[in-house]
């Protein structure tokens, strides 16, 4: 696809880092081109009006000029400042997590409107004081996995293909979905290593995962999960994500620290 020398683009800012004397390298999520890295010249100087103060997590409209390697911002207008989000440290922590997930999973030069809309909506919901950010994080993980092609299979057994019964089942990270007790018991040694990492999945956790995976946020937002069920799906999804990324996420460490006052206290007493 031939591009104009100057072109317009809407984007969400995932990451910023300083380069050169006063420039910034921005990693953006765009609807038409997926993840995109661009340069904002002079963005660190408070006087730089032209390229605007392109802030983390904001939704922006850009005018870009084609560069030799990376394209350069010539004009930036902020469409959503995420003001309410920025005033709350815990919510900033969650926004960092969503941005890190997208940065890790999104592909460059790959149209993904659904992913763009998911992130845009999630950042808006995160700024709403009525939103439970922990529930939103689980909803976001499941929907993101769907949009980037890693949707966990929760409805039929990954081995025999039979519908999953409403009982305690198993989940296999490497297989990418649920295994029924029969397949795990009778064929643990035969299923090409698949069932070896199978761990029990409670019926409540299975129901919660299915609900979060298939419903819209308007329906999900009112859901109340027991602490045990939430802990189970949080651990499962975290292991699933870390398996696919082959790394741990820095923002998860930060969230853990924010969520546990004991960690903060321990730091103080050190």
């Amino acid at each position, binding site marked *: 696809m031939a591009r104009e020398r100057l072109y317009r683009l809407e984007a969400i800012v995932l990451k910023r880092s300083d380069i050169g004397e006063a420039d910034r390298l921005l990693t953006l999520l765009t609807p038409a081109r997926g993840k995109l890295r661009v340069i904002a010249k002079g963005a*660190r100087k408070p006087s730089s009006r032209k390229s605007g103060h392109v*802030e983390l997590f904001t939704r922006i409209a850009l005018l870009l000029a084609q560069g030799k390697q990376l394209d350069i911002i010539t004009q930036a207008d902020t469409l959503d400042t995420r003001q309410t989000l920025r005033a709350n440290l815990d919510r*900033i922590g969650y926004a960092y997590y969503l941005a890190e997930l997208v940065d890790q999973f999104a592909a460059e030069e790959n149209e993904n409107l659904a992913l763009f809309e998911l992130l845009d909506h999630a950042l808006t919901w995160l700024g709403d004081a009525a939103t439970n950010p922990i529930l939103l994080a689980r909803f976001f993980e499941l929907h993101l996995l769907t949009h980037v092609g890693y949707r966990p299979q929760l409805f039929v057994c990954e081995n025999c293909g039979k519908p999953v019964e409403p009982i305690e089942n198993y989940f296999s990270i490497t297989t990418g979905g649920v295994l029924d007790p029969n397949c795990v018991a009778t064929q643990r040694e035969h299923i090409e290593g698949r069932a070896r990492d199978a761990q029990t999945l409670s019926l409540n956790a299975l129901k919660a995962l299915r609900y979060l995976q298939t419903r819209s946020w308007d329906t999900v937002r009112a859901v109340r999960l027991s602490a045990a069920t939430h802990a189970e799906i949080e651990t499962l999804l975290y292991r699933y994500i870390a398996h696919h990324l082959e790394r741990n996420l820095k923002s998860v460490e930060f969230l853990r620290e924010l969520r546990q006052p004991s960690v903060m206290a321990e730091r103080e007493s050190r």
Partner: protein
Amino acid sequence: MDTTPRAVTRLIEEFHRLPGIGPKTAQRLTFYLLRAPKEQAQALSEALAHLKERITTCAICANIAEENPCAICRDDGRDRSIVCIVEEPLDVLAIERTREYHGLYHVLHGAISPVEGIGPDDLKVDELLQRIKHNPGIMELVLATNPNVEGEATAMYLERLIKPLGIRMTRLARGLPMGGDLEYADEITLTRALEGRREV
């Protein structure tokens, strides 16, 4: 075939690697030095060598310095009850230029940005806590991190961590333009931001 002497192309390449220097400027600087008196080139090369040999990190404030502790931490004329927390050594220079601040500093060497792989453990946060603990004379911390998401998150994090210790904490006034870096703020704006700092 390129007949430019290797010593010349090498210096051009080294200049070109510096921030804000394009190939044309790199060439101009190199040919300037080629024509300049030998003493000038030597002075430059000595200054560069000393930069890496003689610069250390102050064990108290984590600022870059020639001596440890640094000149500011050793200065008896400075107010030891107040510590200004900044992201980078350049921010110390920016605040010093105002001549309005007479307390001490603490340099974090960055801001919290997990998506870039930077968490509190990667900053001089533990050093700050230790410093507070061992210096009961510290009465106020001025949070002077950059007025952007990363800087605000860092300030809120430190507030949550340190406020329970009962120390007065203030944040630079909102006069600073959002999104810009502190090191680029002009002296008047920065002076106003210091004077109008608010409790957090």
